[in-house]
């Protein structure tokens, strides 16, 4: 199975070409904005490096959030365009599960959502122990304390330093972003279903006049 995997959700623009269980190309550039300009050329570069034509792809995998609203929309729109023009399924993958993929022990995947909040999902030995959520930092800290099973722990992502004092023994890996190869691996194990939808976890900033 040949998969093109994309991530534009969390402070990076990343693309991988994955075939029969193996990464043929994997590119990642740290990026807070500019995903729209870079993603298409990066996908072309990755396909070129892997010597694969778009028509040879079986699936498109893409992170759906949580993370940058603009970033996740660029990735999802691009993935949908590829899926449509190639007649191939698009598989949505959570950004936080992609960050935690392949790690053992207790993992708190945590992205700074700003304004005193974080996106959080926790995992124990590769299994999610909560759904992705947006929480105030102190509530997130309480969830981590409650879910931690007492073993080795790691807090990963840009929000990890905000939770560091909850688990003093935990290792902190603030620079973690979704690895596109992990995105491909997760997608390879999923059944194609309905078109993936964005995972914002936050309502748009808009007030109905007079309310």
């Amino acid at each position, binding site marked *: 199975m040949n998969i093109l995997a994309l991530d534009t959700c969390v402070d990076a623009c990343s693309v991988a070409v994955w075939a029969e269980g193996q990464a043929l190309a994997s590119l990642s550039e740290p990026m807070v904005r500019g995903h*729209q*300009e*870079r*993603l*298409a*050329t990066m*996908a*072309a570069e990755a396909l070129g490096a892997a010597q694969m034509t*778009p*028509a040879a792809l079986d699936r498109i995998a893409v992170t759906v959030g949580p993370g940058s*609203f*603009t970033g996740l*929309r*660029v990735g*999802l*729109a*691009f*993935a*949908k*365009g*590829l*899926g*449509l*023009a*190639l007649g191939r399924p698009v598989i949505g993958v959570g950004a936080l599960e992609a960050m935690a993929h392949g790690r053992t022990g207790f993992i708190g995947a945590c992205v700074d959502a700003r304004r005193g909040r974080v996106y959080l999902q926790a995992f124990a030995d590769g299994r999610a122990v909560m759904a992705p959520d947006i929480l105030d930092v102190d509530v997130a800290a309480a969830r981590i304390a409650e879910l931690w099973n007492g073993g080795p722990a790691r807090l990963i992502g840009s929000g990890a330093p905000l939770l560091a004092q909850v688990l003093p023994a935990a290792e902190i890996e603030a620079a973690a972003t979704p690895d596109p190869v992990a995105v491909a691996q997760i997608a390879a194990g999923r059944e194609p279903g309905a*078109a993936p*939808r*964005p995972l*914002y976890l936050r309502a*748009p*900033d*808009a*007030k*109905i*006049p007079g309310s």
Partner: protein
Amino acid sequence: MRPQPINPKSNPPVQAQDSGSLVLGIETSCDETAAAVVRRHADGRVEVLSSVVSSQVEAHAPYGGVVPEIAARAHVESIDAIIAEAMIEAGADFSELDAVAATAGPGLVGGVMVGLSAGKAIALARGLPLIAVNHLEGHALSARLGAPIAYPFLLLLVSGGHCQLLEVAGVGRCRRLGSTIDDAAGEAFDKIAKTLGLPYPGGPALEKLAVGGDPARYPLPRALLGREGADFSFSGLKTAAARIAERLTTPEERRDLAAGVQAAIARQLAERTERAMAAYADAHPTGGLRFVVAGGVAANGEVRRVLNGLAQAHGYAFFAPPLAYCTDNAAMIALAGAERLAEGLVSGLDALARPRWPLDEAAAASSPTHVPGRKGAKA
């Protein structure tokens, strides 16, 4: 203001090696998700094979205007389904396309990125050229979707976001003769409609309310009357109308104010266009004068009527796009893409999404009458 012919050789635009093309267009710069398939024949004839427009009006109505984040969310939910629908309706397969054209600005950039990203993906998947289209150029060419109008022509582009007079000599060859120094005409329609308590979008609602009204009942300001040049201003009208609206009580009074506002907007459009027509005619002494009105406000019956009369009086052939192509649509984007393709003007997969993008970039940047915003000229 002394318009000179921009490129005398640009009319007609057809090149010898141009064998026609089939182009998919994508438009997501405001509150319509749209896709269309257009065939441009080698002789310049244009056929719209499909034009699908999914409006988000209902999603924005409670807010009294377009909310950018809500718009962007709606675009990404439906972009693939809308494109698929346009392809099916056209009976076209992706393998038959010659290019993909997507709006790259100006507009709400979160939405622009959705359509542009989807367009890039289709171009990459199928090895097709991508054409990043200026939304305003789409409007500028939209009348060519309904009739084979030759270049050059004088264009009044009048919508919720824009109000400009341009000399259009072909794709990438637009010259500005005048533009609004404050609000766009459609913005004035919408904002005044809001003060009259009309639902969003206000322009069409105001036109409906104005039927049978007395436009002369309330005196309204006549901005820039007799002033040199072909610029527009609508903010004074907006303020005056808001003051009058405050003290109205009966439905007849509201109807008459709506009629007055509509007439005032149409009158200013006509007065300023008349100046541009005179200057344009001086610059094109050999005749063949063509006037095109495009953009959402071109759907207004009173505006069309007044401008049509003006064109006749000054010896211009009058063109307005079919109503479906006045408001935002993707057929006009596909057409602009097809004309650009015919001239070899294609974009890279790294094309930028641009919130601001004047059609005549160089002129807009140096215009003495329009102080650009902090981030440069908007449009």
